[in-house]
């Protein structure tokens, strides 16, 4: 995990010594990592290891206890940071979709562009349609969120986040709340995004996706980054015993599917 000074220069996000405590419960301990343009980083680890909290800290939905988050070298945890402005560059896709229930699919994808980016209605509509078509949700623009399935909601959520033209997109377990048959359509949409060069930070339990799509894997255990490296390194040659234990659990769970 040696710091590469050249890489740090062009980093979009740099997390330094980040810690987060809920009361006496220390959830994140001294986290360091860097996100560069084009990176697709999968954060894996057991439930309760702090993956989602890390992502929520990066988007300032949680306030870290200590440490810094540099966005193009500027610490966004410093006083006087314009949090909404920062968040408009860092998109987020949630486990529970969080589509606006009072708006149609199309309005969901236009609201942020109009209110935050101050785009005109026509421009916002065209841009929203572009991404809705990419995720295959263009026919459903008149539906309300309660009328579509979970997988469809999540694809709309991805289009909504992308319509803001973010520099980096955070995914917080995007498929965990979905029925098994809907996971594939969301993963496919995410894979398309990754291949188009989008910078992504994905908290996931989908090991196959992490292995095949990401450029880097971060394994978190009990609030610390236990191991970090390329998918080959982590999946084929993990260095730490904890990583091996974690991955072997997944192999066992996956094995019946592979045999069939």
């Amino acid at each position, binding site marked *: 995990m040696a710091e590469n000074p050249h890489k740090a220069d062009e980093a979009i996000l740099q997390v330094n010594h980040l810690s987060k405590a809920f009361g006496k419960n220390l959830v994140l301990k001294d986290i360091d990592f860097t996100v560069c343009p084009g990176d697709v980083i999968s954060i894996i680890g057991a439930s309760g290891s702090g993956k989602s909290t890390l992502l929520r800290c990066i988007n300032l939905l949680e306030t870290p206890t200590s440490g810094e988050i540099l966005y193009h070298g500027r610490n966004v945890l410093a*006083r006087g940071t314009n949090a909404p402005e920062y968040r*408009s560059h860092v998109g987020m896709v949630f486990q529970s979709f969080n589509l606006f229930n*009072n708006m149609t699919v199309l309005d969901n994808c236009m609201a942020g562009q109009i209110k935050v980016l101050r785009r005109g209605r026509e421009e916002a509509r065209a841009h929203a349609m572009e991404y809705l078509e990419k995720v295959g949700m263009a*026919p459903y623009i008149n539906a309300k969120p309660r009328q579509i399935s979970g997988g*469809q909601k999540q694809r709309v959520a991805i289009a909504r*986040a992308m319509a803001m033209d973010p520099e980096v997109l955070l995914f917080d377990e995007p498929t965990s709340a979905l029925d098994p048959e809907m996971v594939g359509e969301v993963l496919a949409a995410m894979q398309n995004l990754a291949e188009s060069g989008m910078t992504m930070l994905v908290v996931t339990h989908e090991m196959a996706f992490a292995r095949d799509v990401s450029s880097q894997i971060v394994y978190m255990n009990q609030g610390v980054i236990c191991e970090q490296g390329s998918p080959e390194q982590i999946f084929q040659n993990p260095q730490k015993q904890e990583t091996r234990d974690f991955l072997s659990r997944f192999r066992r769970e996956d094995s019946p599917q*592979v045999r069939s």
Partner: protein
Amino acid sequence: MGKFAQLGADIAKLWSQYSNSYFSGMKNTLILALVGTIIGCVIGFICGVLNTIPYSKNDHPLKKFFLKLIRVIIRIYVEVFRGTPMVLQAVFLFYGLPYFSNNAVRFSSIWVAAIVVVSINTGAYMAESVRGGIISVDPGQTEGAMAIGMTHVQTMTSVILPQALRNIMPQIGNNFIINVKDTSVMFIIGFPDFFAAHRAAVGASYLYFPSATVEMIGYLTMTLLASFLLRWAERKMDGSSSYELVQEDQLTMTAGTYRHPGEGTPFDERSKEYENLEREGR
């Protein structure tokens, strides 16, 4: 039976003499209740939004101080106006202002005075209703709005309040109906509402019970009409329960939809690759 005939005759007599005054009273009552409820709702919504501005440890101390101050002021407003009778509030405001300013400041019209009192009173109740309405909206909605860079006010006006408004529509209806009835206390400052028409009529005719019957029927008619309209408005707000598919492109029409499993998706090819990779990986 004779008594009912007598009542009918008395009502007919009252009606022939005072129907205009009853009607204008009803009109004034409805206008006062409606305007008071609407302004009260606006006050309630403003209080609700101010009450829920979030602050964190990292914020400037001055900002935190002001936000806390606002919450305290709203709390005092709510407790005072919810905890005292509207009839006394009317007296307090209407006679209090000239009393303290040696008649320099007074309400120019009885309408302004009545609307101010009813609005402030309704606002105190609505502030709490709106707070409840905002709490009842899933916190994920706020997070979703914040994550695309909306400010607190933008989040509130375009995402949370429309949903909160729908949730508290029954409460708004309650308040409106209560206002239709309770504006009757405004006779204390001389407001010509429906109940004032009753006082005027019985003052001259001494037909207390027949006039009260007219009032009962009149108030009930107004409130039933209000309930009916409110239910209709609620249904209107819920919108259509179905939606139209937009067929902009034959290819995307059924793309990736689980409703048309037979149609295939543009991602099919990719998922096959994906499966192959998965097999090779093991």
